[in-house]
């Protein structure tokens, strides 16, 4: 069931979620969510804490198994697939708590993310030298080249955030799921971060991002999906969502309480 429509206004759906529900001991963290992630754009997931955003990511990447519902990657169901298989299909992610390979160097972090196969040889044609060169380019683009030999553990906060991004850049995934990648960044880092995301999207990467900072949401989103208490309340163009008084009362109401 591959989508062939190529209307310029509506990009093809890369990932399609239908009626997705996940309950933990009867509590529904995600309830009947249907969502399409379209190719080549940035979709932002917003919503108060506990809305089920990260759970949704975990369901997509196979780190959690849905209670019911369907997830299709380019038309093929990926429900029940092992996380490493889904990753190899082209879905990469970052974690809110980063989960860097903390005892490895910055360079090794990027290199191992690039090495799809665990063996001594790699299936793709690139040689070891080419992979190392590519890793250096990525570190250069993320401003980490001078820290290449530093252990991930010994990086400053913003640098860790960029390493998390560098690691995902090293994969050849077509879709990135970014879990609050910009939280806590200073304005200068944040500008570099947004510029990086934009250039990756131009390169053809599809991004779904969880973000709390409305300023960032406004500046990067092509589409916004609003979740609350596990349910998808709205899904549409940024102006449409952000101007909806009902949604902002939920969003800010929760934050102020």
């Amino acid at each position, binding site marked *: 069931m591959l989508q062939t429509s190529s209307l310029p206004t509506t990009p093809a759906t890369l990932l399609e979620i239908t009626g997705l529900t996940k309950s933990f001991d009867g509590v529904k963290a995600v309830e009947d969510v249907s969502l399409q992630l379209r190719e080549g754009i940035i979709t932002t997931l917003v919503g108060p804490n506990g809305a089920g955003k990260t759970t949704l990511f975990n369901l997509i990447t196979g780190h959690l198994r849905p209670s019911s519902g369907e997830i299709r990657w380019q038309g093929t169901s990926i429900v029940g697939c*092992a996380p*490493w298989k889904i*990753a*190899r299909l082209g879905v990469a*992610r970052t*974690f809110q708590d980063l989960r860097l390979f903390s005892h*490895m160097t910055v360079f*090794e972090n990027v290199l*191992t993310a690039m090495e799809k196969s665990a063996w001594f040889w790699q299936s793709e044609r690139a040689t070891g030298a080419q992979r190392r060169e590519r890793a250096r380019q990525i570190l250069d683009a993320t401003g980490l080249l001078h820290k290449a030999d530093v252990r991930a553990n010994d990086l400053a906060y913003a640098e860790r955030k960029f390493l998390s991004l560098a690691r995902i850049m090293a994969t050849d995934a077509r879709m990135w799921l970014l879990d609050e990648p910009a939280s806590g960044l200073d304005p200068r880092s944040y500008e570099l971060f947004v510029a990086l995301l934009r250039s990756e999207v131009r390169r053809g990467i599809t991004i779904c991002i969880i973000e709390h900072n409305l300023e960032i949401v406004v500046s990067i989103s092509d589409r916004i999906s609003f979740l609350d208490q596990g349910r998808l309340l709205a899904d549409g163009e940024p102006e449409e969502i952000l101007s909806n008084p009902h949604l902002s009362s939920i969003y800010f109401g929760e934050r102020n309480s």
Partner: protein
Amino acid sequence: MLAYVANLATLICINAILAVTLNFIMGYAGIFSLAHAVFFGVGAYVAALMALQWTDSLLLQLAFAMTVSGLLSAALALPALRVRGDYFVAASLGFQVLAVTVFSEWKSVTGGIGGLVGIPPATIAGHAFVNPMEFLGLAAVALALVVLLTRTLVRSSFGRSLKAIRDSESAALAFGKNVALIKTLSVFYSSAMCATAGVLYADYLSFINVESFTIDASTLFMAMVIVGGIGTVWGPLVGAVLLTLLPAVLTYLPFLPQTEIGSVQQMVYGLAMVLLMIFKPDGLMGIKQGEA
């Protein structure tokens, strides 16, 4: 005196192989095994049985011992590694206890408590390693090969995958690493390599019994890795040297009554471990920045 030193050096080489192979899974894959002595024992029994009943060819003994030990480890690793990492310690402990029972009760194969005696010296291309100095050379070469191979593996993409899994299993999965398979293979490699130490041990002593392959031995190997520095190249070697020499040094202390040496040794081990964990938790060769 020379023979005495050569004997100690040979035992150090054998222990170092055990420590290096255990460090491979403990230090790089984050898998803590209390069953390392089982695979040491399997290697030794396979070599001894082959030598007694079939062939004294060292290379054949190595090939068989490594295969049997590796396959047996997969039988442990496949189910045990599917659950979360911490359970492997418990599973390996159970495996160790089970193996000791088999070693001491399966009399027709292992000789029971009495073990296997009169194991003929091993040969390579018809040359028998009878001279202790020659055997020391053999053990040293084996150790060098194991260290070299392990080091190459750690620095390859396989090694990076292992370290990634150690640092964050969920992130490794998210980057396409087949965690269960990689862990199983690392245990397979570690156990197969560990069996080479068993082969050397059986051929060297020409006598083996279950006492060398108990939980005490497994803990000793683990202590070597931790004392020397887990996850470092030189740590397990240093740990093996120190903990092999310790009992020998204690026998030279004139004020210790010979009968008490055993318990003094345990106290020294315990004290050393406690002090080390307080003052140098990364091991003697451990550096804050981490090796690798």
